């Protein structure tokens, strides 16, 4: 079993004032390391609209590289605009995954639209930054990766990685909508697409990780990190019938030697909810993101209410083997 030592909450969006688009939530953290700071992208929400519904934006905070609990800057505005009327990302750009490429920063993100029979649909969009990731311009109004015969809806949660010169996009796709107490809840599975240029993708059309938590298990945030000859995937999940309850989300783990075949072993994950009643993560740990900085391996993760009150940091003790 791995050992993650929790270092505490890094960022609480509810303490920020003067940004109406950043009222609460700091979801799905993703890092981009600079010389002096670590930029952590996250997704946030303004207050509910007149229909009682949220939209979501993505933004970032910059953390002092020498002290990750020291916030030195915060995005002045969302990193990209919501989509135009009728577009796949009209109501949200969440979550976002970032990678450096050709002196640019590329973003893969899930765009949200609202539907009639189910609450939403999502597809994966693409945008580029030429100002070190402060603002992003979309390549076009439509999605980069969307519904297909084996992935009929709700493509989301992209995590882009580059291994051995090839792009890998880990993401989730809807398996089915499960009606729980009259309300459709989505059951997602972790999927993979590969690409030589980051723009043209070939879907593998397979679930990467088997269920272990229960029927219709919904998986999210497939975060892949290479260490010691093995690809390590930390992800999170829940069972739709318990979605509205607390303590419903967990972090899972799978490993692979070839990025295609994955062996699930949640017993190794080494991070769980806190026992402390006052802690921000005593009900839930979710949306893991693992990164390396100055010889240390860290995990950013969300706490209670799926990051409504921010994200925390844990540090690996020992090795990922």
């Amino acid at each position, binding site marked *: 079993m791995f050992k993650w030592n929790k270092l505490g909450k890094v960022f609480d969006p509810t303490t920020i004032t003067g940004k109406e688009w950043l009222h609460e939530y700091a979801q799905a953290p993703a890092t981009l390391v600079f010389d002096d700071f670590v930029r952590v992208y996250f997704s946030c929400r303004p207050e509910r609209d007149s229909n009682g519904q949220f939209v979501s934006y993505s933004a970032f905070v910059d953390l002092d590289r020498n002290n990750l609990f020291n916030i030195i800057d915060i995005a002045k505005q969302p990193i990209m605009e919501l989509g135009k009327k009728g577009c796949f990302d009209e109501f949200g750009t969440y979550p976002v995954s970032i990678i450096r490429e050709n002196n640019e920063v590329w973003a893969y993100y899930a765009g949200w639209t609202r539907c009639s029979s189910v609450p939403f649909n999502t597809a994966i969009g693409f945008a580029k930054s030429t100002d070190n990731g402060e603002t992003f311009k979309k390549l076009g109004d439509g*999605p980069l990766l969307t519904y297909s015969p084996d992935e009929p809806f709700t493509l989301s949660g992209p995590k882009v990685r580059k291994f051995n010169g090839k792009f890998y996009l880990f993401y989730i796709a809807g398996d089915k909508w499960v009606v729980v107490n009259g309300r459709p809840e989505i059951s997602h599975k972790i999927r993979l697409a590969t690409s030589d240029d980051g723009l043209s993708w070939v879907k593998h059309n397979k679930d990467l990780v088997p269920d272990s938590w229960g029927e219709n298990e919904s998986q999210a945030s497939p975060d892949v990190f290479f260490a010691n000859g093995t690809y390590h995937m930390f992800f999170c999940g829940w069972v739709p019938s318990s979605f509205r309850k607390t303590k419903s989300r967990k972090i899972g783990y799978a490993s692979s030697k070839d990025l295609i075949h994955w062996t699930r072993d949640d017993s190794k994950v080494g991070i769980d909810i806190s026992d402390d009643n006052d802690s921000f993560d005593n009900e839930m740990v979710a949306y893991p993101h693992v990164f390396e900085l100055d010889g240390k391996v860290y995990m950013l993760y969300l706490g209670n209410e799926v990051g409504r009150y921010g994200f925390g940091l844990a540090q690996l003790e020992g090795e990922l083997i």
Partner: protein
Amino acid sequence: MMKWEKIGQIFEFETSPFKDRYVSHAQSPQALVLEDRVRVFFSTREADQPGKFLSHVQYVDYDFEFKNIIDHSDHEVIALGNLGCFDEHGIFPLSPVAVGDKVYGYTNGIARRVSVAVETGIGYAVSSDNGKTFQKYGEGPIMSASIHEPFLVGDAFVRVFDGRFHMFYLFGKKWSQATEGQVSERVYKIGHAVSDDGINWQKDNRSIIEDMIDENECQALPTVIQLGERYHMYFCYRHMAGFRTDKSKGYRLGYAYSDDLINWTRDDKSAGIELSDEGWDADMMCYPNIFECNSSVYLLYNGNDFGRSGFGIARLTS
């Protein structure tokens, strides 16, 4: 110059056996020529929640003179999609193409949205019984929105030319911002894609037919036939707004020709078919489908009110 002789309305919804199960409409008639008959698929409407309906595919079979209906479907030809799928709220139209001993069906799937009326995608289904029933290839679409075609991909028409699959289809350009008391209107154009297997497609990512009205002209339902060395396309087009009630802004048939399937010359004045002075196709003509049968070329189409009353047919005379 094309020249058409109108044979007249050959399907009337109100007097059809479909009236028992469906509310109205027989939209976008599309022909599949079989050994002893012509099977014409169309979409008809089932009542759903108030103000909404579901489009279902049905068919009628004609003799080769289009004088008699010799059979009709009384079963589910193709199922609508499951909860959350792209074709959950309707299939309109289904476009058939015979390939070997199979029939490929390209569907326009409809799913309702909140800020705009609907989103669409192109589905693919295969029939092994001459189009009586179609089995879908997966639950999702084979073609839908992409970076430069952000929504409303649909209305596929597929033919094999020179050993390659060619698809002519519709893609959305914009949804207008709704003004007070008005709904958001869509603008769409005609695109082209190619494929080696009929399933995996490469879009050209461009509008292939020039506008005649203005940049907000809506172009839909392309249908293409090769006659000699030349490819002929019919489609329908309309104004972005006002088209439902104002005859002068409603659907008309447009025409274009090409010798290479890439470059198209729009030439509506050579279409050779116009609104009738009175009757079922005097206010509107839309959803054309062109095909060859017994050495004659035919054009199926809808008339007034988007095919509420049924469809008709014309024969090419020169």
